[in-house]
């Protein structure tokens, strides 16, 4: 059974974690934003900006973790811009998000090209090394797969767990969910709707940018034009697929990565029988399929896309 051989190979699961990490950051980031009632279509651009800023910081000689922090900061800034426009001014979340993506992408490319005008091959940095967790990594098979990954992969899982706890079990998380479901009610409870939404969008955007930074600082070691390649849009589809449940979103991102890694292995084994473009299409087709499957069950936050203006009915 060939499928079994693929699934048993440790290289396969290492690839799964590598594919899943940026998706986990992006999906959890988008989910937090949407649970507060704000769709953030800036995700694609914010991930690109994060990958560029993180790479640039390290390329200029900075520490790799500070690079990730810088990326998060850039994400939070664009999140703030998105929040000012959609939360405070109540502009269309769709068009603003697309505008943020355009702005963040073009700014990333502009800065990248201004720093490095005349290079044909993108200069490389020393990417983050895999980190073997002492003890656990020496467990046969499993240790090599799950406990010898990029530190950012662990971070993705730890941060998601913390944020899921915060969102579902704490008063702060309750406030976030409340402004996304019933902003008027939240206001009556003394919650500052605009502030909570702004915070949620900024935190979510910072996470997206870290997901982008994973691409340049861990998965690859250079920045390329178009390197985000639709990952942001896939994250948005994953949020819908999860029915806005953070635990399911985490699982969804990993499941998606399993499929993606699987199609790459199948592609290698079938050779040129099926054109390679078909395999490259699969992630996007899979995302659309996921949207269709979950459409009937979609329990989206009631106030998603609805701007809140105090005192307006």
């Amino acid at each position, binding site marked *: 059974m060939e499928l079994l051989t693929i699934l048993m190979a440790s290289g396969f699961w290492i690839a799964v974690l590598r594919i899943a990490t940026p998706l986990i950051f992006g999906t959890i980031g988008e989910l937090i934003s949407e649970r507060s009632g704000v769709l953030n279509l800036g995700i694609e651009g914010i991930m690109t900006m994060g990958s560029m800023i993180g790479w640039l910081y390290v390329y200029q000689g900075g520490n790799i973790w500070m690079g990730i922090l810088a990326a998060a900061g850039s994400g939070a800034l664009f999140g703030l811009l998105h929040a000012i426009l959609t939360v405070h001014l109540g502009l269309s979340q769709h*068009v603003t998000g697309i*505008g943020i993506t*355009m702005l963040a992408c073009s700014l990333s490319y*502009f800065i990248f090209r*201004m720093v490095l005008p005349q290079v044909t091959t993108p200069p490389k940095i020393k990417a983050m090394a895999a980190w073997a967790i002492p003890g656990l990594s020496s467990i046969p098979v499993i240790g090599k797969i799950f406990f010898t990954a990029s530190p950012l992969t662990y971070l993705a899982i730890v941060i998601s767990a913390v944020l899921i706890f915060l969102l579902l079990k704490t008063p702060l998380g309750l406030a976030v969910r409340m402004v996304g479901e019933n902003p008027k009610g939240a206001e009556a409870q003394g919650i500052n709707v605009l502030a909570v939404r702004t915070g949620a969008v900024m935190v979510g955007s910072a996470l997206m940018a870290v997901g982008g930074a994973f691409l340049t600082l861990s998965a690859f070691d250079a920045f390329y034009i178009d390197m985000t390649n639709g990952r942001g*849009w896939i994250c948005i589809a994953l949020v819908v697929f999860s029915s806005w449940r953070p635990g399911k979103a985490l699982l969804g991102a990993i499941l998606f990565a399993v499929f993606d890694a699987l199609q790459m292995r199948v592609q290698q084994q079938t050779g040129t029988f099926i054109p390679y*473009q078909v395999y490259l299409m699969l992630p996007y087709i899979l995302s659309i399929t996921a*949207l269709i499957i979950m*459409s009937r069950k*979609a329990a989206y936050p009631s106030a998603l896309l609805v701007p809140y203006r105090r005192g307006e009915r």
Partner: protein
Amino acid sequence: MRLEPREHSSIFLNLGAPVFAVLAGLAVCSIMVWLAGAPAGKALVLIFRGALGSKFAISETLTRTTPLIFCGLAAAVAFRAKLWNIGAEGQLYMGAVAATLVGTGLVDFPGYLLIPLVFAAGALAGGILLLGPALLKTKLKVDEVVTTLLLNFIVLLFVNWLVFGPWKDPMALGWPQARPILDAAILGKLIPRTRLHSGLLISLAIAVIVWAFMRFTRWGLETRAVGANVRAARFSGIPVNRTIVRTALISGGLAGMAGVCELTGVRDYLTLDLSPGFGYTGIVVAMLAGLHPLGVILASFFISVIYIGADSMTRQLGITRYIADVNTAVCLLTMLTTMLLTRYRIRLK
């Protein structure tokens, strides 16, 4: 800070909004040029000279205006109905694919038949591509933004397969491009020895038709009503879902025609670099135009000036041409904000 609805929205404000957005875009652009260490004032002069300074420059600017008019109309029509079609890029390529299918020898018609046929095929292909997301939106409430965006990637890979695979022109010295379309389908040049082709006239005519359609026909009224207030439209007996699907076919068709126009007017053959993101730029055009079909003509021209001018300016000053993309993005976000200010005033309190 709070927003207070205005009782009257003056014509001065409505016309001032795009002007302010354009100025804001240029201002941010200048700051970035200055940060990059180049003279900002000279850059502005070079942009306008590069886009409008000679007969050739103007012809290039108008050549670039043509696909932007089509894509701007595609976005304007769809956004009027609050159908967020972000897939014009994919629809453009599907239009070009259909035009290649029909125009490279499938039928051997004279030009006056072949050109309309090629345009019809392209429009149909673009419309059908948007039909899927529109049906998913109306039947299953699947958000069309994500589906249209994802379809862009799928269509580009499909074209990639075509030009590297079955459609690859053996005469093209190994370049990934399809066979050239028949001479009969190629649009005539408006000015000899430039790239400016009669597609510009077609796009202008289509803009007027779209304006008249939206303004004077029942279908146009229904489109605007659905966008203005879905609930009210439904209560007044407008078939909302049918209107959305119809709008999708029109919008996708317009974007498809942009692809046909580039193919039959500029390129002659299908390649992967047929469009440098016209579909996405069309969104900016539509917003700058305040979703008005005739405004789209002006907005397309302005955006085209920026792109052609920036191409020439960046070559001379050694700045990257991504500055033009930054400019359009800033224009979009500023326009959104200023449009709000035509309807609300800000009270600081």
